[in-house]
Each structure stands twice: as C-alpha cells, then as structure tokens.
C-alpha cells in the first residue's frame, strides 16, 4: 500500500528535524505520530517539524501537532514548526492555532535566528 506521506528524520546532538512530504490525513497521521511521540519521550530539547513539502493536512494532522506541543511543553522543550504552505496555513488559521505554535519560515531561518545551532 503506497502511502501519501513520506517522513524524513534528521537528528543532531541538540535538535531533531522531522520533515513531512505529501499529504497528512487520518490515514497517514498515525505514521507521523509514531515518529514524533518517542522523540518527546526521549525528551529531545528541540523538535522542528518542517511542513514545507506538505500539500494537504486535515484535523488529524493538526491534532498530532497539538499533542506533540503539549508533550514537549511538559519538559520545557522547544517545538518549532516551519514551512507552512498556503493550504496548511489556512487550516492553522481556521483552527486558531497559528498563535499557539511557534511558526517559522524555514529551518534556515531558525538557524539564522539562533533558535537552533
């Protein structure tokens, strides 16, 4: 069964970047959740979710991000979201979650702003 979602994980000493590529929906978001939860259990200090290659996201994808945020806040880690495509930006805005998350232009932007090394 071909998945509509590919997930790439780049882990460094101090932070991890999870790059999603494709469509995040009720079928594919559990695959994302399965990658995200263990990283919060390991209390990674900084987790970056790059959405720049996400063409579609439904409320189950948003729910996974909210869950990740809440788990990370518990141990006072950083949770950054980068690369919102117009479709994803609209879902965030409609969900009134654009102010809840720390949203940035790109991973490079995070580096320039020294939020990640």
């Amino acid at each position, binding site marked *: 069964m071909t998945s509509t979602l590919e997930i790439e994980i780049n882990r460094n000493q101090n932070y991890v970047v999870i790059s999603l590529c494709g469509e995040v*929906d009720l079928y594919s978001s559990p695959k994302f959740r399965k990658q995200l939860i263990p990283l919060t259990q390991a209390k990674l200090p900084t987790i970056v979710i790059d959405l720049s290659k996400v063409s579609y996201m439904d409320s189950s994808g948003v729910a996974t991000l909210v869950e990740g945020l809440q788990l990370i806040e518990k141990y006072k880690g950083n949770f950054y979201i980068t690369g919102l495509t117009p479709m994803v930006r609209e879902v965030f805005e409609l969900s009134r979650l654009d102010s809840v998350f720390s949203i940035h232009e790109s991973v490079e932007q995070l580096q320039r702003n020294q939020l990640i090394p």
Partner: protein
Amino acid sequence: MPEKTDEKYRNVSLRIPSNARYLKIVRSVLEAVGRMFDFQEHTIQAVLLATNEACANIINHAYKDEPNHFIYLDIYPSSERIQIELRDNGIKVAPEKIKPRELGDVRPGGLGIHLMRSLMDEVIFDQNYKPGNKLILIKKRSEKNDKHS
C-alpha cells in the same frame, strides 16, 4: 434539498469502505468534479477538507473505526454551488453531541466540526434520516472569480 431536473443528471455518487485509506479517493473525485465545473481552486480546497473531515467523523464516531462498513457520497455541482451529501448506516448522532470544542481549549482533536462550519456555507445534519446519519455540506460558488459551467 430539491434539485432542478436538469441538475439531477449531474450527480456523481461514490461509495467507499469506512477506512481512512480511502479518503484520498474522495479527495480525487471532488477535485475532478470541482475542476470540471469550473469552481475556484480555493472553493475546491474548502470542499475537499470539509468532506474529508465529515468522512473522518463517520469513520471514527458513527462506525467506531470498524472498517467493514460503507460511506455513501452524492456530489451535486451546479451553476450556483456544490453540494455534498454523506450517508452512513452507523450509530445515530445525538444533535447535542455535535459541537466543536471551545477553540481556547487547546487539545488534540475536536476540530472537525469547527473546520466544516468555517469552510462551508451550510452544514446540515438531517435528523429525519434513518437508519444512520445524513449530512449535507453546501459551498456557494464565489461570485468574483468562479466561471459558470
């Protein structure tokens, strides 16, 4: 929802298993119908997401994640709007249970109904339909840019 006679034969119907892997097919059909009838890209995206959320709720709540049921979709495009009717044979929803969470209450989930209502012009749970549930989603053609079919 009475349909004009000439619109009756524009109706595309789709039946999928109650399984999230088939959401992609629903989106493909809606995209093809939307483009065919010259709806704006933005209107098509709204219809796609709202219908996706409606199907997800049927799978999760009406069918309690059991994959051996079916979801029935009827798509009615017209010069004024696009209407989607979703039917299931699952557990009947109590009208008082269909409410979005408070948006201030940030928690995973509880966004589907809110998204549907934000994206569509009308979201109607037909309480008279039995057995199961019937939900009607309506999105008007935005006057500025959508060409008529």
